[in-house]
């Protein structure tokens, strides 16, 4: 059926894969009709997809350095776009984002703008130039452009801090989903998640991660879009929700006016289980100050352009031109999911609060709601809670509480979709969290194995030894991440946002100025990275421990402080120390034109 080289057959291979997955969904739907239990369907969905990824990972095993670090630099534009989208959209995007929009509305949607706008910076400021450079890792660029082990080492530190913060959140998410779908305790599920992540990346490095990420994107996008379109049609809101939900958005505003936002007393709120929230903010109105919105968006944009696991995806394209276009495709594939999240939040909220809909629960008696099947299920899972605060026997808007994850996970069930959809959603969430975790673990272990071990400690190491070191580090980092994830220090979304702020604090300006400012030199870059990271971290600690902060910068936007310090210190230190030598200046010139050999190949 398939002849010739794998790369030439990609559309066919993934076409068959997608078809096979759709057939699997239909088979599961038939099995459900035939009486298969909900639990078993969930197990089948998660186990089947994870096994497929592991198979791809095994088939992509490699013993070559180029394939291990940059997938042989032959990933076609569109497929790299899909892989980047999966790499990018984490458990937070898939499971938590619609929930955040549901609860916080406009103020939260700064994340949508920030997490997409950042790609304009990636495409115009960085990706094509770093591709021309021909490096294996982001610290590889810093180390060669600025010269010296100190610059390289500092970049590895920033990369590790940012990516490690991020990866614990993703392993936590895989654990959460695995524990629900497979019905095992969280502490064990975390390691099941870790094992699946390592199976995808250990044998084939970047090559294996690339091809599993494409497969994971296909699963996650089907799992996200199918329920949104289905629920929308089922509610009679329109067959294409993105263009047709205006009446529903207006209806929510009308209902909010009718119910009012009653503030609960602290004593009442104390009875609500931890992590659940009520609807306290208007759905579509502008409820945040311009600065609150913009500062969060700016942090997410600059963070996007500094996160190494995203940047290194563009090292895998065949050319500079394809790297540039590939950024466009990445954002297109991300856009498909991000533009659907607010629609899902709207549909979810309306189906719960509109008393004229059969699914609406506000205005029903407490006893009635407590008798609903899905309420009992999700209440048991600690994601839903009602309480009759005012004692009138009727459920009011302020008496209904939900966990953020429930918007994505529970809405299909609430809207009365078959359980097969809930199983599909679990598989999608698993795919989203796994693909991001893979990219992150690989980014960290590649930086440690290539930049610390090979470039600094043992430059004479032969290929086989380098790849063994890379794999050992991969496993160690995975275990460290899982161990910390099992402690559950910070919520999934909070850690993700922190990761962006860390990356922005330390790496944004050293990367950008490395291409766009020839005068930038090694002492400047080291000062920029270290002082940026330190000041950002110090601000975070200060605000976390009760400090008042300044300029309205919160613990979610501390990257602004870090990046500002980084920029100033980098410019000042660069200017008071000697200009880079002629060879370095020539290197920057070479990076700026697409033609010719990559900079590292010339050396």
């Amino acid at each position, binding site marked *: 059926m398939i002849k010739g080289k794998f790369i030439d057959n990609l559309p066919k291979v993934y076409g068959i894969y997608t078809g096979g997955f759709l057939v699997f969904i239909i088979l599961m739907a038939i099995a459900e009709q035939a009486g298969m239990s909900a639990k078993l369907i969930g197990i089948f969905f998660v186990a089947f997809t994870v096994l497929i990824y592991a198979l791809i990972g095994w088939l992509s095993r490699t013993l070559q350095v180029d394939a291990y670090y940059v997938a042989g630099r032959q990933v076609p534009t569109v497929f790299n776009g899909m892989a980047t989208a999966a790499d990018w959209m984490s458990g937070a995007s898939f499971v938590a984002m619609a929930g955040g929009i549901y609860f916080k509305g*406009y103020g939260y*949607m*700064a994340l*949508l*703008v*920030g997490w*997409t*706008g950042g*790609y*304009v*910076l990636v*495409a*115009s*400021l960085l990706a*094509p130039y770093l591709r021309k450079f021909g490096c294996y890792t982001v610290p590889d660029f810093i180390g060669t452009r600025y010269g010296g082990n100190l610059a390289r080492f500092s970049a590895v530190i920033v990369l590790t801090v940012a990516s490690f913060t991020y990866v614990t959140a993703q392993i936590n998410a895989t654990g959460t989903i695995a524990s629900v779908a497979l019905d095992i305790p969280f502490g064990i599920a975390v390691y099941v998640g870790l094992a699946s992540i390592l199976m995808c990346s250990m044998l084939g490095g970047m090559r294996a991660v690339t091809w599993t990420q494409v497969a994971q994107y296909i699963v996650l996008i089907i799992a996200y879009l199918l329920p949104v379109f289905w629920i929308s049609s089922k509610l009679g809101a329109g067959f294409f929700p*993105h*263009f*047709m*939900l*205006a*009446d529903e*958005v*207006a209806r929510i505003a009308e209902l909010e006016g009718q119910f009012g936002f009653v503030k609960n007393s602290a004593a009442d709120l104390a009875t609500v289980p931890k992590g659940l929230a009520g609807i306290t903010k208007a759905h*579509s*109105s*502008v409820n*945040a100050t*311009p600065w609150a*919105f*913009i500062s969060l*968006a*700016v942090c997410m*944009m600059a963070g996007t352009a500094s996160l190494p696991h995203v940047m290194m995806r563009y090292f895998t394209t065949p*050319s*500079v*031109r394809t790297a*540039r*276009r590939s*950024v*466009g495709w990445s*954002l*297109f594939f991300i*856009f498909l999911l*991000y*533009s659907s999240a*607010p*629609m899902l939040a709207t549909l979810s909220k309306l189906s719960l609060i509109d008393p004229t809909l059969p699914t609406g629960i506000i205005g029903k008696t407490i006893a009635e709601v407590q008798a609903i099947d899905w309420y009992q299920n999700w209440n048991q899972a600690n994601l839903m809670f009602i309480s009759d605060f005012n004692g009138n026997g009727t459920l009011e808007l302020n008496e209904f509480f939900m966990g953020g994850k429930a918007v994505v996970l529970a809405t299909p069930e609430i809207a009365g979709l078959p359980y097969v959809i809930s199983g599909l959603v679990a598989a999608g969430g698993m795919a989203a969290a796994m693909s991001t975790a893979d990219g992150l673990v690989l980014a960290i272990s590649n930086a440690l194995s290539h930049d610390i071990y090979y470039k600094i400690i043992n430059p004479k190491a032969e290929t086989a030894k380098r790849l063994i070191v890379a794999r050992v580090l991969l496993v160690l980092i995975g275990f460290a991440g899982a161990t910390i994830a099992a402690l559950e220090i910070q919520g999934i979304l909070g850690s993700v946002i922190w990761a962006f702020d860390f990356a922005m604090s330390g790496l944004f300006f050293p990367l950008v100025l490395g291409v766009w400012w020839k005068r930038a030199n090694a002492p400047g870059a080291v000062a920029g990275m270290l002082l940026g990271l330190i000041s950002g971290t110090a601000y975070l600690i200060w605000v976390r421990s009760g400090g008042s902060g300044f300029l309205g910068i919160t613990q979610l936007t501390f990257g602004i402080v870090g990046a500002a310090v980084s920029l100033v210190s980098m410019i000042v230190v660069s200017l008071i120390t000697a200009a880079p030598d002629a060879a370095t200046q020539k290197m920057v*010139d070479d990076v*700026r*034109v*697409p*033609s*010719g*050999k*990559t900079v590292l*190949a010339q050396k």
Partner: protein
Amino acid sequence: MSKQEQHWEKTRNLLFITLAIWFVFSIGIFLFGAEMQESSIKPFGYPLTYWFTCQGSLAIFVILIFWFAGRQEKIDDEFGFSEREGDK
């Protein structure tokens, strides 16, 4: 001015235009979020600011990157700096 300097100047100008458009739709319009929300312009019936945060800005970014890539390819071609077969 050498060929390479001219190429870089054009590249830089394209960057500034790209970043200006990016600035307007990622930062600029949200300075006036409250005012825009009241506007009578309602894409697909959604309130204006709400629409931009859900779809508008996001879609503009996608188009902007492809437009930018196309323009940059033209600049590279113009100066003969595009990659050729065999460049690795």
